[in-house]
């Protein structure tokens, strides 16, 4: 199954991520976001970080989750490529994220993502398939 599509927005860019369940869709949204930042095929799973996010509702939780990962990227320069969502409710998420420190000599780094926004944000389920749409400020 396709993990995500890139969606266009005048100044910015977003993803619609898919999953058989909400966990998978949340994981694929994160995968889609890091795909915009680097070629993930070149990135290993050398390190992992445990991540917790909280928010008032399901949609905001997407933003909290992705912005938590961006914070980790800025502070530790880790590009994440695999996400094990350990726990997911509509207000709370716990996950292990796996990736590698960015290295410009080995990784093809693309444009940055500043933040996940609430703009056009949507979590939905259609015929058994979950999708998460999120637009990034780049």
């Amino acid at each position, binding site marked *: 199954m396709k993990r995500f599509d890139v969606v266009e927005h005048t100044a910015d*860019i977003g993803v619609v991520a898919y999953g058989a369940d909400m966990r998978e869709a949340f994981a694929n949204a994160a995968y889609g976001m890091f795909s915009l930042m680097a070629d993930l095929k070149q990135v290993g799973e050398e390190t992992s970080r445990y991540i917790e996010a909280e928010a008032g509702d399901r949609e905001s939780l997407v933003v909290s989750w992705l912005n938590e990962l961006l914070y980790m990227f800025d*502070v530790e320069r880790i590009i994440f490529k695999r996400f094990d969502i350990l726990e997911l409710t509509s207000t709370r998420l716990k996950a292990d994220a796996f990736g590698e420190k960015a290295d410009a000599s080995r990784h093809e780094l693309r444009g940055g993502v500043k933040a996940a926004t609430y703009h056009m944000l949507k979590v939905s389920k259609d015929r058994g398939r979950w999708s998460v749409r999120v637009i990034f400020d780049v």
Partner: protein
Amino acid sequence: MARWDGPLKKIDDYRWEIPREYKSGMRVPGLIYASEDMLDSIREEQAAEQVVNVAFLPGIVGHSLAMPDIHWGYGFPIGGVAATRVEDGVVSPGGVGYDINCGVRLLRTNLREHEVRPKIEELLSQIFINVPSGLGSTGKVKVGKKEMDDILTNGARWAVKRGFGTDDDLEVTEEGGCLKGANPDKVSTKAKERGLPQSGTLGSGNHFVEVQMVGEIYEQAAAQAMGIEDVGQVLLLIHTGSRGLGHQVCDDYIRTLREAMQRYGIDVPDRELACAPVKSAEGRDYLAAMACAANYAWANRQCITHWSRECFTRVFGLSLRQIGLEMVYDVAHNIAKIESYEVNGKKLSLCVHRKGATRAFPAKYPSIPARYKEIGQPVLIPGDMGRYSFVAVGSERAVKESFGSVCHGAGRKMSRHAAKRGVRDADVARDLAAKGILAKSASRGGLAEEASEAYKDVAEVVEVCHQAGLCRKVIKAYPMGVVKG
């Protein structure tokens, strides 16, 4: 994408009003500055509806404004300006944006095009090496936690104290490079952690350092006051903001204010318009944190200025005195400021949100540098890297109509992704080279995303502001070389 088919009532050739009656809940009408030719592309997306949504903000006065570089943002449109009463109005982080104090800084040199052209490649390479750029780039200035508070409180003054530049630089920086009211305690630990490794970095996206040459001079006297004497003179333009620190402040406070909004019984049509009364604890905290991020950005541009000067002296083997590189001006285009204006005959203290809009104060106005008292505050309006940029000065009419604001750049007309599709960095670099412009980018796809085709023609955008009387064009400059983040 859905077309926007709302009403645009013609006021004159450059002003289009969205009447209050269009949607119940609008507290003021909308006003878009544009030429008739621009309307079609404006209607192609929902930016005008965002002008309408902003008109819902409690305490908004005058019009919900949009400059001719208007395009679809989140919450506010890019190019949006909104002034709310400090007394009983709100402040909205969405009216500032994620990149708090994203802004531009212009420097002038004593060098001429023929002196710089043969060395442009070497110069760009030096800048590329000495100004950290690109995704996840880390700074060469090592800052501790305590010093971070100093940066957040003192902005560019901190940088000058550390030897990066001089007091003369501060003199011609908006707010002297230090916005008052900054309180580092209101900035989250996370935001500070993001800021630590990125101090003095350019970042990625549309940020750049560009070597330019003066192409046309429209107003000799104003140009002279800026140290710009003739065509062919070389300039340097720096565009960057507050990096991850600013993004985290924005994200933190959108969340805080969304919760606060419910307590204050405020309802807005878009989540990205989260807001709180300017005078509430939450509103004041946001403004104190925003000032910190703004100061971080000014410190950032000041560091980059210093390293750029070092690159020039190294490459040309001349002293800084011989080269020049004095600052013309530094101005923010993503910021909220407390300023006072006369509205319906009454002097009001207002919170002016400029989201992709530039402050443009006229001659004799308080708070502009002595050097520019006779001509007005310089307004820096960069275009895309394949065309040209403008410098203008503010006018009286901007104070009367647009809360002392004008456009901030070219404005996008297609998504970065669409711009990139089918276009490769190498193609863009070759096209630019054919025009005599050398371009270097730290990120793959960095040039393709910023290709000229992705932007409106900044000349048309500036022309609208000029014709509408909001500012006056002073010079036009052409790029010679650009380092993209």
